């Protein structure tokens, strides 16, 4: 057997990838179905000199990783629905202070305690709008272990590049499915390092003054530059301000730095798209079922394709519109009441040709759930 071939859960793939990306600090709180991530990191991190801490609650876990990130470390926390709700205020703090961090949300059934051990994709909108106030955020998904690995590394890279929290929106099926994972060799996937300021000691460092390319070089807490970090609206010094010009500029900056780079942040996978008459759009574990249907229909000569979204936020509206332009019908496959469906309807030229194939009963979506809708659209069933 090859040395770099593993047989693992999605949660383990996420851990391997986080370590590959240079994770040095993890704070978390036990919650199903993400707990394996914390358990594994409590063992793996100290082995490489990193730090693991089980905090007293979900809120403090989020706060602790932000504190650690400011000292220059790559950081992550992992949770599920209820914990994701609790973390939202601190996620907003990371948005406002532009602190890189990765938050894994292994989705389970909700609202409230819901279905702790069952699958759902009900947190798509919460990932986008969970914290209060105008802002933007990056959210990635994956449908299998290999992609969970790739997207976890991407999450760290994007969080460093754009100085923003990145949400890894996994789900119970991806997190707990055991399947093969080929560990990429060191250097095979690019790993983005923290961008640190070149301003020397004794010269004024402005923590919130963007460079010409829009990026903000950081200075580690505990380093030579002493500055203020606040969740209040702030000026280039990091000092609180309610000056309308500064507030306007900062609000725009926080949104534009992400929405203005949608193309660069978009990760998609395409299956049998070129000549497709019927296009399925899916993400996360639902995309596994969607792909099964597509391969099955293709074997029967039906022109069905799949667009798998790996970036959910910022929503790749342009890409979706282009891919949907020439197809007869679009079916969005997801395990909620149509959270991405609405985004697709907004993006396409003809929203009336977009339909939903979903499952919301806690069971994993089946090919039949999709075929039932497809047949009606094709005029082959009732």
């Amino acid at each position: 057997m090859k040395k770099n071939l593993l047989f693992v859960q999605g949660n383990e793939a996420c851990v391997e990838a986080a370590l590959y990306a240079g994770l040095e600090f993890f704070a978390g709180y036990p919650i199903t179905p993400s707990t394996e991530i914390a358990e594994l990191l409590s063992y793996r991190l100290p082995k490489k000199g990193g730090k693991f801490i089980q905090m007293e609650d979900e809120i403090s876990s989020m706060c602790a990783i932000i504190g650690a990130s400011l000292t220059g470390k790559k950081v992550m926390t992992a949770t599920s629905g209820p914990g994701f709700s609790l973390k939202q205020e601190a996620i907003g703090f990371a948005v406002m202070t532009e602190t890189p961090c990765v938050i894994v949300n292994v989705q389970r059934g909700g609202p409230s305690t819901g279905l702790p051990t069952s699958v759902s994709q009900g947190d798509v909108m919460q990932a986008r709008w969970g914290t209060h106030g105008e802002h933007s955020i990056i959210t990635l998904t994956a449908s299998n272990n290999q992609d969970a690995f790739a997207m976890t590394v991407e999450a760290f890279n994007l969080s460093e590049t754009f100085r923003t929290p990145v949400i890894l929106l996994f789900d119970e099926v991806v997190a707990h499915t055991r399947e093969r994972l080929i560990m990429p060799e060191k250097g095979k996937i690019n790993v983005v390092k923290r961008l640190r300021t070149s301003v020397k000691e004794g010269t004024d460092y402005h923590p919130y003054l963007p460079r010409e390319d829009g990026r903000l070089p950081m200075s580690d807490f505990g380093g030579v530059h002493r500055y203020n970090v606040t969740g209040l609206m702030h000026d280039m010094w990091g000092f609180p301000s309610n000056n309308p010009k500064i507030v306007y500029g900062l609000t725009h900056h926080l949104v534009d730095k992400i929405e203005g780079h949608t193309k660069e942040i978009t990760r998609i996978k395409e299956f049998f798209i070129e000549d497709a008459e019927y296009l399925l759009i899916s993400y996360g574990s639902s995309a596994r079922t969607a792909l099964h249907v597509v391969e099955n229909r293709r074997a029967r000569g039906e022109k069905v394709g799949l667009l798998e979204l790996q970036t959910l936020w910022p929503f790749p509206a342009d890409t979706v519109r282009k891919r949907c332009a020439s197809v007869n019908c679009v079916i969005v496959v997801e395990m909620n009441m149509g959270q991405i469906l609405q985004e697709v309807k907004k993006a396409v030229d003809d929203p009336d040709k977009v339909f939903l194939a979903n499952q919301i009963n806690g069971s994993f979506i089946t090919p039949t759930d999709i075929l039932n809708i497809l047949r009606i659209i094709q005029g082959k069933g009732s």
Partner: protein
Amino acid sequence: MPVKDYIRERFFPHIWCPGCGHGTVMGSMIRAIENLGIKKSDIVVVSGIGCSSRICGYLDFHTLHTIHGRALAFATGVKLSRPELTLIAPMGDGDAFAIGGNHLIHSARRNIDITAIIMNNSIYGMTGGQYSPLTGYGDFATTAPFGNIDRSFDVVKLAMGAGASFVARTTTYHVRSMIKILEKAITHKGFSVVDILSQCPTYFGRKNKLGSAVDMLKYYKTHTIPIGSKEKEKNPDLIERGIFVQEEYPEYCTEYDKIIEKASKER
């Protein structure tokens, strides 16, 4: 260094009301750090939300002004990540004991080397004078127009019960002893809690007819006594001040270093 070298004059004037005790706490904190000779770049100050928390902006250290109640959670991340840094978390009484109470007791339980300074004015000042967990029974506040029926925490007993390895109380009247206590708290290797009674003439004082800031300081003079004073037997309502606990327990970051050593030896 003169005191002014520890502050960011650019960010003045400060937001504190005339007569507020928080400036006295800030001044004492600076003098304690000056006396200890700790480099400014080795100090991280982490605060939450409230009047007290604005101290962050004014101090020329690494300063982190966070969200309500969570100063110690952020500070834990900074400290565990960079144990060589000196961590100070100034908090208000609402910040530290209501919304942030959980983090305070767990920081104490872990005995992580952070100095928690409670700027205790018995009121939520920033929002205009609502009662806090440190507002006394029968006291008045904008949300206790008929008198407060909540019992208040005893900061010292709570911190001791949670396992803090250094616990002290002082007031803004007793500045010299406050400086000495802060020096010891900051130097102490472990979790330190310093309860500092700090007057709020604007809200707590006005609502409870306690007079001017000077009157409130005089109250601290006459109504507090050093620990172990016989006066306490005669008048049990007197508040004790001084160092209640100063013990050496294993410190969290030092213990974690041992975990790293153990883990790296295992194959």
